Each structure stands twice: as C-alpha cells, then as structure tokens.
C-alpha cells in the first residue's frame, strides 16, 4: 500500500493533459446539504454586496490550483544540482523560490527550507490546524490535516513514518517541526544514490510532495 501511495503521489506531477483526471470532481461530494446551501448563500450574498466578484473567486481558484508539488520539486532539483542556488535557498528561501519559478510570494507567510542530511530527517506538521507551504506546494493532502496525523506525529513520529512506508535509521535524528506560527516549512530531501547522472528535469520526476513534507524520502531511479 505505501508503494501505491507513492505512485499516486507521483502522478500528481502529470501536467499538460487537457483532461486532468485529478481535477475536482463530484459537486459537494461528501458535504451535507446544509453546508452546500451555506456556501452558496454566503457566496451569492457577498457577491450581491460587492464584497468580491465572481471573477475574483475564479481568479483565486486558478491561482490556488497553479501551485503544486511540481513547483517544489523544481526548487529541490535545482538545489541538488546547483550548490550556489542551494545556499541561497537556505538563506533566503522566498527570494530564491521567486527567482527560480517566477511566482510572486509577496504577502504569503514566511518560509524556511529545512535540509535533510545523513544525520537528520525533518518531518513537518501543524498540530493546531493545517499550516502548510501552500504558496509553493499548493493544497495540503487530507491526511496532513487529519486529527490522526496532527495528534500522533509529534508523539510517535517513527511509527507514523512507518505508516507511510518510511523507515528512518535509529541513528538519524528525527526532527518533528510543528508549524505553530507565521513560518511555513519545506523539506529539502536528501538526494538519493544513483541519481548522479540525472539532469534537473529527470530529477523533478522523482521528487514527491511527501518527501517535501518529510513523511517520505526520495527514491532513486533503481527501485
């Protein structure tokens, strides 16, 4: 199951296909009629009162959808292949990410990039709600927002990582990073062996969302 999960996460990087199988589906699926009515009532009234326009909503949806794990993967791949970029990324993450991706991170929360090494493995959480580097990686996965993850990752991180199929050696320090305030975190995962001859575009395809949260590591090409 963890391997399937890994593949599923991997396919979120497929873009350029007009019929996107991961596009939102099932209008109000799993949501009560009361919630659906409330959303519609709020939206229509707020538009009526010019608090915002329908176009504003549409633009905001497009903006949110434009941020995906692939953006983060490109940052990681560049950091792996360009030591100067990596140094800049660690020192001034927002500026480094803006300049690489051409996106505007002004007015978004502060970012810290935490580097996994042979001695230290970071895993990110938000026990109090769902703080996540949305401005780069997009919407967090459902499990990240779940009571189970939020409750347990700070208390039994190795067990939780195990549920993702990830085993961190006993002598590697696990650092559970609770995003409790204004800072958002992205993990710079360890570059796996066997990738030395790969170019940036090839590396991007290996780097998963989950490795940038820290519940997974990046697997090399020889799996």
């Amino acid at each position, binding site marked *: 199951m963890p391997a399937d999960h890994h593949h599923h996460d991997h396919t979120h990087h497929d873009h350029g296909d007009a019929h996107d199988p991961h596009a*939102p589906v099932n209008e109000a699926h799993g949501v009560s009629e009361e919630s659906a009515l409330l959303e519609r009532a709020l939206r229509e009234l707020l538009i009526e*009162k010019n608090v*915002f326009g329908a176009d504003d909503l549409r633009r905001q949806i497009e903006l*949110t959808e434009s941020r995906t794990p692939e953006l983060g993967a490109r940052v990681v791949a560049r950091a792996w292949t360009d030591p100067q970029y990596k140094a800049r990324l660690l020192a001034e993450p927002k500026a480094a990410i803006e300049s690489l991706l051409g996106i505007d991170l002004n*007015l978004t929360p502060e970012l810290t990039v935490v580097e996994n090494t042979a001695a230290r493995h970071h895993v990110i959480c938000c026990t109090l709600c*769902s703080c996540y580097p949305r401005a780069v990686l997009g919407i967090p996965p459902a499990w990240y927002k779940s009571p189970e993850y939020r409750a347990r990752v700070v208390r039994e991180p190795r067990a939780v990582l195990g549920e993702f199929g990830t085993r961190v050696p006993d002598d590697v320090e696990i650092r559970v990073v609770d995003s409790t305030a204004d800072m958002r975190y992205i993990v710079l995962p360890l570059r796996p062996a066997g990738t030395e001859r790969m170019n940036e575009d090839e590396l991007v395809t290996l780097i998963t969302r989950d490795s940038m949260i820290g519940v997974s590591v990046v697997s090399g090409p020889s799996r």
Partner: protein
Amino acid sequence: MTRGVHDLGGQPAGPVDLAEHERTFFDQRVDAMMRLLAHPEQGHYTVDAMRRAIESLPRDEYFALGYYERWVRAIRQLVVEKGLLTEDELDRKLAALRAEAHRA
C-alpha cells in the same frame, strides 16, 4: 486543564488514513472565498480570526464536519462579526435556497 478542541498534539488517535481526497468544487469555492475575505491587504479579517472561529466550534461539530465545512461555518460567523452580512439576511437567503432546492 482546558484544552481547545483543535489542540491535538499528543492526543490519542488511530492510524493515519492515507487516502487522497480529490478536491471538490465546494472545497475550491470555500477555499477561494476564505482567501479573498482574509486577504492580507484587501481582506476583512485575518487567518487568525478564521482559526479562532473554527476553534470555537463545539467539539462534536469540529470532528463531525469536514475540513471545508468547518471553514464555511467560520466564514459565516466572521462575515456577521465584521458587519458584511446580517444574520437576518443569511437566514432569509438560506430559506429561499432551501425552498428552491425542494421545489426542484
């Protein structure tokens, strides 16, 4: 010792459900509405106010509601708090929408 319903670090809990949940149009619209209303420059309240409103949900509601369902209730509370809408307007609109839904 009082602990907010949202303050979950270390609480007993079961296995993490790894299933990916595709975003629905409902999710997208609630998310977008929140981003506009809590925009750092053009917004009417802060993300902190959103969190506070969500945290004040009764315990059983907090856990029974989906993530964006909690958000939509928080938005409702805050737009009334900030005087963007009145409870009256909302109640009348909801009644109208319910009537429409049951006619269909």
